[in-house]
């Protein structure tokens, strides 16, 4: 038990964070490099004003036409993404580990609130799964990898929820939880989860092209 814990929370955690950080830097650098090599003219109409305008309208719920057309999806996706990012960073038991390893600490979410947000993430994943199966237009563009990615995202939250409540098999699930978190970190730069990095670039590009070339809004 101690050996496994030390392995998953030591060397494996290092590997996960290095691949995550290195992968993210590589991905963004490769993106900019590819655009520079193949479609350099894009830089000629990139504009800060149109970029920020687009990012702003898509990051605020109901500020884009598309988000108003799909109100349920809009609410679910915002609740999902906010909880997904805040819970792992501001969970007390995670901060305790940062404090022990690096002597750094910051304020934590109350455990009760983090528990509710975790349930919201899990329910959102169920919603996204059902949506892929039920809606024909979504089903049409769904491949096996979409289900794998959904499972990768849901796993740390399901195992974390189970472990927090200390149900039977607690230690085993804790190890699974750490592994699930590491898999998700690694998957961010190397799967379609990379939209975490690319979404601002996508919006900046779309905003600039619509604003500067077509003289239209992209929201």
């Amino acid at each position: 038990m101690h050996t496994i814990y030390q392995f998953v929370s030591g060397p494996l955690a290092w590997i996960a964070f290095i691949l995550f950080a290195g992968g993210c830097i590589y991905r963004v650098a490769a993106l900019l490099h590819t655009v520079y090599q193949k479609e350099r003219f894009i830089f000629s109409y990139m504009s800060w004003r149109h970029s920020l305008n687009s990012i702003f309208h898509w990051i605020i719920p109901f500020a884009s036409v598309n988000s108003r057309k799909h109100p349920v999806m809009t609410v679910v996706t915002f609740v999902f993404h906010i909880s997904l990012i805040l819970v792992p960073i501001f969970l007390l038991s995670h901060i305790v580990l940062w404090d022990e390893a690096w002597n750094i600490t910051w304020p934590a979410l109350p455990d009760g609130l983090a528990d509710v947000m975790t349930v919201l993430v899990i329910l959102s994943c169920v919603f996204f799964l059902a949506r892929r199966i039920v809606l024909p237009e979504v089903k049409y563009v769904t491949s096996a990898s979409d289900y794998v990615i959904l499972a990768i995202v849901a796993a740390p939250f399901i195992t974390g929820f189970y472990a927090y409540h200390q149900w039977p098999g607690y230690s085993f699930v804790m190890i699974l939880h750490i592994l699930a978190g590491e898999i998700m970190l690694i998957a961010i730069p190397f799967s379609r989860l990379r939209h975490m990095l690319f979404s601002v670039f996508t919006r900046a590009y779309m905003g600039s092209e619509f604003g500067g070339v077509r003289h239209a809004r992209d929201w």
Partner: protein
Amino acid sequence: MSKTVLVIKWAVFILIFITSSALCQYDMVEIDNSVFGDPARPPSVFEHDAHNENAGLDECNICHHVYEDGKKLEYESSEDMYCSDCHSVKSENGSPSLRKAFHMNCKGCHLEQKAGPVLCGECHRK
């Protein structure tokens, strides 16, 4: 020996026994976390005497340490003090915060010895 003297002798003996057993943490089953005010987790399970017997600890200062200028004093011990006398809830003067001090003292040793609880819920049981 008169009966009265015998009763008094027994009474004194029992009194000494009770107070001494209370003083030596005979019945300690968890860490007193009242100093945290609004503790985020249930108090850590800790049966003092059973733990020390199990772990084969004879020296008090293995846990009840004294640090001076960042160095552990080999022959000093601090079992007559509260942990919170040196470790306040917020980290001060380079001394780890109380929460961190508990975690490092318990979990740190458990990892070194490869024995004893190391996961949150193994000590902070609901």
